[in-house]
């Protein structure tokens, strides 16, 4: 019955409308999910490197005290399959065994092959079957000569020339890490030194440790030029240098799984166009669980970075 049938008495019609709204608003169909424990997978494969461990745990309630040991998943059956390049059929299996609680090591030596797809399978009697795939990115090399010594913020900026990285589709994504040999406060570059200067001792210790591996975040290949030889030229920004001294500069070409995981994890607690507090689930490649099963190819350049005042004119 339309409320407007009661239009001779608008107040009564409005009252009926208000009642309808009240009843309607009480039946909110969009209710929150309940917490469900899930298997957490963590494993990284690097092209032309041996297979490394698979770490398994479970999620915990957000309000609980966390430690890996507490949530380690024991007694799982873990294996990685190498798939045939064309058909995608299972070709070769590497089994894993638990070395410490929740940490599983391959039972044989296997060098990860660029361009191949690897399939992870985890079976555990108390949890759903877990499965994930990763396709190893093409390998590449830094081919240009790297100066032994760089002077921080001098006009001579480091360029890395990467050869033979092939994008499978779209474009490649890189993360460039700068790994300092020594993480000492007196070796910090000015920006980072100011950043930690006022911190308490414990907080400072943690910051110094965290800055030992400085990460660029995900960079699209579109940021860089390709030279006439088709090689990629990456201009290395000074911002990446947290410590003076010996630094390894490690560009990593990441697979789709790492790209999805890192880009979503980095804005999980805010940022981008998301409103403050708009928390999202991380994009995970794990079927039947959460976490990451990803791969990369990488190369390393080593150099020694000195303050600018050490530069000889």
């Amino acid at each position, binding site marked *: 019955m339309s409320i407007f049938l009661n239009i001779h008495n608008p107040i009564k019609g409005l009252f009926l409308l208000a009642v309808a709204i009240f009843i309607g608003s009480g039946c909110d169909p969009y209710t929150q999910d309940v917490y469900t424990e*899930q298997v957490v997978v*963590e494993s990284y494969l690097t092209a032309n490197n041996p297979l490394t461990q698979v770490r398994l745990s479970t*999620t915990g309630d957000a309000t609980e005290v966390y430690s890996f040991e507490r949530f380690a998943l024991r007694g799982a059956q873990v294996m990685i399959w190498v798939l045939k390049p064309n058909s995608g059929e299972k070709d070769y299996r590497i089994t894993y065994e638990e070395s410490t609680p929740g940490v599983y090591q391959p039972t044989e030596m296997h060098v990860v092959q660029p361009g191949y797809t690897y399939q992870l399978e985890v079976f555990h009697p108390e949890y759903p079957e877990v499965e994930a795939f990763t396709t190893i990115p093409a390998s590449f090399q830094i081919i240009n000569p790297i100066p032994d010594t760089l002077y921080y913020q001098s006009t001579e900026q480091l360029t890395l020339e990467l050869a033979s990285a092939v994008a499978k589709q779209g474009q490649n994504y890189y993360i460039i890490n700068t790994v300092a040999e020594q993480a000492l406060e007196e070796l910090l570059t000015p*920006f980072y030194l100011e*950043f930690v200067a006022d911190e308490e001792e414990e907080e400072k210790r943690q910051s110094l440790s965290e800055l030992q591996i400085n990460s660029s975040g995900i960079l699209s290949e579109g940021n860089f030029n390709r030279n006439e030889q088709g090689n990629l030229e990456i201009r290395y920004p000074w911002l990446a240098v947290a410590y003076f001294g010996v630094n390894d500069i490690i560009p990593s070409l990441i697979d789709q799984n790492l790209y999805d995981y890192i880009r979503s994890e980095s804005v999980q607690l805010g940022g981008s166009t998301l409103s403050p507090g*708009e928390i999202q689930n991380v994009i995970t490649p794990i079927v039947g669980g959460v976490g990451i099963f990803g791969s990369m190819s990488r190369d390393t350049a080593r150099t020694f970075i000195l303050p600018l005042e050490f530069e000889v004119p």
Partner: protein
Amino acid sequence: MRLHPLLLFLFLLFAHTKNGHAQSSQASVSGFISDAASGETLLAANVALLEINRGTTSNTLGYYSITNITPGRYTLAVSYIGYEVFRMPITLDSGQNLRLDIELEAEIISGEEIVVESTREQEELKNIGRAQITTQTIKELPAIFEADVFRSIQYLPGVKAASDFSSGLYIRGGSPDQTLILLDRTTVYNPSHFFGFFSTFNPDAIKDVRLYKGGYPPEYGGRLGSVLSIYNKDGNRNDYRATTTLGMLASRIAIEGPIPKGSFMLAARRSTLEPLLGALRANNDNIPSLFYFLDTNGKLNLDLSDNDKVSIAFYSGKDRVDFPFGDDAAFKLHYGNQTISTNWTHIFNENVFSNFVFTGSRYFNFPSFEIGGTPFNRDNNIYDLSLKADIEYLPSEKHTMATGIWAGVFTFRIQDQFDGQNTFGQRIHAQYASWYAQDEWRPTTDWKILGGFRLNAFSDGNYLRLEPRISVEYLRWQRVRLQTAYGRYNQFFTLITNEAFSGFDLWLTSDQGIKPSYGDQYIFGLKTIPFEGYGLDVEGYYRTMKDLFELDPFLPDAAGLAYADLFRFGDGSAYGVEAMFEKRTGKLTGYIGYTWGYTWRRFPGFNTDPLYNRSTGLEAKARFYPPKYDRRHDVNLILNYALNQKWKLTTAWVYATGQAYTRVLGRYALHDDPFSADEFNNAFTVGKVNASRLPAYHRLDLSLQRSGSVLGLETLLQIQIINLYNRRNVWFQSFDFDENPVQQTDVTLLPIIPALSFTINTPNGYL
């Protein structure tokens, strides 16, 4: 030979006009309605011939026309809220076209007793979806430091604020980019100062603010949801006047006055935070070295003849921040808007009224960082140049026809540079055009039907979209209006922004492969006058939103991406009911507004069931979710009480359902991250997006005004208290992973804030 539809319309229009002249036995009355003191034209004033119950309203240029009147003696009545009712006996002879420009006197409140009788003519015509807020209300409402147009609009039913820190308008479930914002008919792309805290419009420079919350007529287009049209003051045509306001955050100055055959207005406003920043800088390193906003509005009007008026209006506003936050780190931001509109109004005759506008709008945004010797710069510009032509035709008392075009060139340019190298760049140069035609048909005094269409063309992607629109109104017992409306709306733009910070706003457009968004609106309304001097309005709406395109929030780096790969595509809907009970007369005036609403969005791959079994090989189905600004219940109570001739109290109380948020359910950690030296990296598992609610939001604001005079100058002292009972409303929850277990903290909104402002006006004849 086939006539182009537009030519056909114009042919019929002028053929009718000629015919209209031939009907020499009928008479007409037309003219402009203006304020007697200032000469400002009054928009949407009611005009009526009482004996025959014929009426109309003045249009957006203050012009009215009543045609096809049988010769005779009539009483012409004109009413406008805040003005004395104008009544004048007129005699119309056969064939006479009476030109009658009317000046209304502002209501004079004398003595302690304030009695304003309501009459039928004083009831403002309330079209469906429409709301109006006066500049006086904007200035009287309690405001956070500075009277603000958008924050005043946020008090209306159906309009929501994202937070205390945002002046953005979320209307009927739409995001801010779904509202077309026009200043003197010119699109304004980033109407904010201080990164969204304030809107850009100086209340001293504004004459009229009208909001179409939905179901807007064919004369407007380009946005899915609503239209906010703001008009600058023309300037006082009779006397020179100046006003200045000293506030805690910003100060304003405005001057206006007559020029031969016209008037001018110039207003400026600048933030005045420097003393505060200077004091803070003495004890704190992290204070910007430069932080201000500045805006200026101006308008010049000239009457070339009785039938030709021209005006030129401009706005220029900018925000600047320089923030060196370390010896080797600095952030700079410079953004703003500039608009210009040149208007020519021509009255062909009492039946045909026309308006032609050239508009120019520029938005610029130049953020830059330099950290650790590595610079980042962005150069973002929008240029929008357009021409508008509107013709209104009154062939008979039953029809008001209108047609118009709006065509322009939109240029968007962005160039990002990182470490001296170009990274992301995009240039969009699009032409757009639209044509509308509409007819307001009043078959009887009880019925009003407005039907028409709008045809939009957009060059990027070669899109041509037709938008039919209709609204029907039935007037019952003079006190009850039943209304309904339907409309199709298209949007070729999307705004890339963040609720907490609008300083980096970007507008992007549809293109090949990026279809424009579109949606339908269905509205039902009931407007009543239950008792003399009161109003009760109820409107229900249902909206669809298709082909929504917005920047993928998970995109880490746009460099090298194809334009279409920047976006995610989705759909949505919104529905709700708004009610407003208003007391319009007496010492105590105000309203209580209530909104019940839902709004939903859905994007593929987003808000999927995390436990979905993907081994089926099918993508998990995205679920609809409410955006953060979705509110189930929203109550606004606004009260004005004139204590006596000098003192006035205004209070605003707001209640809203708590903001939607996504509840954190579980956590886990990664320990072997090859790209980080952190001991472990935490992550959450969360439930359905925005399926939980923060505590309810409520706040009471108060404004006490005292008007007086000093040395012959009019003064106004305003004392305001925002959040009187210091309610700690929650904005969002933050998580500290350094604590074990993770510590959850409520981030709260504004605490209690007192504010003070002092305004000085020169009365007429002072300068």
